[in-house]
């Protein structure tokens, strides 16, 4: 078969234009397939790591999914709040290394506002346990200071020192603005690709302060406590929405989880974020499967192109095949010649697309990770992708058998003298 390899290469080179275009089609379709596979994986990993390094998320008892949705993604609302005393009691447990309280409910021009403590900036992790970084400024220190997520700052054009007011509830409604107590931007976070980018972070005390003269979700008529004197009040919150816990040792997580669900003060729920996020992905993951399915279809189109070109070339190659038979080639040589050509085109297409995807991941990966929350795109081919590539080759081999079989039939019928 070795002499045939040389002939196959020369023959393919002779038809380099049509084969080149086919190769390009294969390369593009495999590139799409590989990109979707890689981004799918990265999106899944990125999603699962929207919050990392946190061992438990604790909130009022309800559905675990709902807890993750409002505590991590700031979507929807908590059915109940958590008493400050409960938080204090659980945070004091010796297995707890750190705790971060979360108070939600206000917003700024559509972006959720999170009341928390400076511990948030210290302990919050996302992705591969990356800490939050500031592109400018620092964590809040004073009462009416805000730290903006990257997207909030970019979309609304805020810079350090700018002033903004918060709205009660999730959207601006007339009369529900905390206009009397404006905040100053003191820090802007670097993009993370997680819900952090869309948050306005303020202190718990500030949340308490803007609601001093409010009751039941509306300002108390006739009562207005100016910003200058709020610090004279007790700004210790009575309740929070949820809190994050980090443990000294992960092995204690189940014990603490049980302990929290049996907490006497009030009905609470503790979920492990990874598990809950995985569950959540199952429901939104349909899209990725659809994308992958479409990519396979595009690849099928590429392969049919290859088969069509190979079949079309047979007519002009009948003489060539007859000459080869006259010098001693058998039908099996003819089959080999056609199969090797298809596989060669596929191999080059696949190599081209692996190179393209790797270069794209190298150039665009950091950007995608920052703004879309994809986990870092791998540069090398993963075992999962190797299986994918094996599938691609198997499909190409299968498809190449068709023109090869045609050529086999033709060469049997033609013998040494093609009847053209």
């Amino acid at each position, binding site marked *: 078969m070795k002499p045939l390899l040389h*002939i196959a290469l*020369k023959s393919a080179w002779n038809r380099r234009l049509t084969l080149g275009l086919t190769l390009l089609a294969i390369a593009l379709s495999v590139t799409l397939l590989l990109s979707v596979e890689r981004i799918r994986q990265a999106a899944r990993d990125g999603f699962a790591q929207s919050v990392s390094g946190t061992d438990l998320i604790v909130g009022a008892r309800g559905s675990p999914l709902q807890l993750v949705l409002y505590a991590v993604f700031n979507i929807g609302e908590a059915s109940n709040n958590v008493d400050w005393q409960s938080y204090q009691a659980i945070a004091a447990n010796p297995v707890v290394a750190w705790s971060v309280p979360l108070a939600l409910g206000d917003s700024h021009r559509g972006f959720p506002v999170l009341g928390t403590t400076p511990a948030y900036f210290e302990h919050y992790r996302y992705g591969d346990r990356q800490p939050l970084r500031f592109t400018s400024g620092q964590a809040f220190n004073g009462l009416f200071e805000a730290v903006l997520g990257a997207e909030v700052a970019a979309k609304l054009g805020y810079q350090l020192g700018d002033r903004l007011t918060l709205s009660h509830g999730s959207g601006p409604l007339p009369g529900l603005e905390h206009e009397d107590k404006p905040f100053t931007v003191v820090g802007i976070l670097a993009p993370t690709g997680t819900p952090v980018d869309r948050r306005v972070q303020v202190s718990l005390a500030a949340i308490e302060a803007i609601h001093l003269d409010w009751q039941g979700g509306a300002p108390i008529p006739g009562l207005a406590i100016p910003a200058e004197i709020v610090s004279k009040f007790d700004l210790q919150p009575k309740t929070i929405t949820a809190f994050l816990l980090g443990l000294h040792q992960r092995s204690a997580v189940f014990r603490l989880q049980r302990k929290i669900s049996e907490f006497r003060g009030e009905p609470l729920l503790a979920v492990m974020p990874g598990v809950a996020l995985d569950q959540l992905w199952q429901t939104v993951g349909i899209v990725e499967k659809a994308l992958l399915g479409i990519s396979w279809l595009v690849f099928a189109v590429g392969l049919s192109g290859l088969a069509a070109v190979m079949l079309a070339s047979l007519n002009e190659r009948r003489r060539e095949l007859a*000459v*080869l*038979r006259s*010098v*001693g*080639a*058998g039908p099996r040589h003819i089959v080999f010649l056609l199969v090797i050509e298809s596989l060669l085109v596929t191999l080059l297409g696949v190599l081209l697309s692996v190179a393209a995807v790797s270069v794209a991941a190298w150039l665009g990966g950091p950007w995608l990770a920052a703004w879309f929350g994809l986990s870092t795109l791998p540069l090398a081919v993963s075992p999962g992708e190797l299986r994918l590539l094996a599938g691609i080759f198997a499909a190409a081999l299968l498809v190449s058998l068709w023109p090869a079989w045609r050529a086999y039939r033709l060469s049997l019928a033609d013998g040494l*003298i093609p009847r053209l």
Partner: protein
Amino acid sequence: MSHPAIAISNLAFRWRPADAFCLELANATVDAGKSLFLHGPSGSGKSTLLNLIGGVLLPARGSVSLLGQPLGELSATRRDAFRADHLGFIFQQFNLIPYLSVLDNVLLPCRFSARRAKRVSEPEGEARRLLAALDLDPALLGRPAAELSVGQQQRVAAARALIGQPEILIADEPTSALDAERQAAFVELLLSEAGRAGSAVVFVSHDLRLATHFDHSLALAA
């Protein structure tokens, strides 16, 4: 050399069992090193006969034996190998693989047959010698075959058929694309090189004027 190069006996061929025979040949023998002129009108089954001798087709009746080996007793794969080892072919036209160089075209049989490659101590040198003997400009050797004139292509085809000294050379109207005055010259060159290689020659043509160059002559009935 006890066996004739080609021995045909009681041969008949048809494409489908239901058809009438399209070729019948009672007896024909070509001794080693001898030449046979085969003529007949088109449609007389010349192409079919060549496919039968080449072992690409098998007869419905009778047998073709080459060098004492009945082809019908060999498997298809063995017949392909036998063809590579012992036969050289020249066709009317389109003999060459257009994208291969002249030299690569001539060397093709040596790629498929170790036996023919071994017979010439140095295949490339032998290819050059044959091409020179067949009067081909050495400057053309590296060119793709597609760039050659028809006459040049036929000489390259002759060199390819002869390389490695196959026992049998089959030429199917190799001169029909050539001018009248160059036909005779080509036949002479071919026969002298075949003689040098010790090959038996079967030369098919409808041009009876060429018959005088050959040892024997045989007519195929229409």
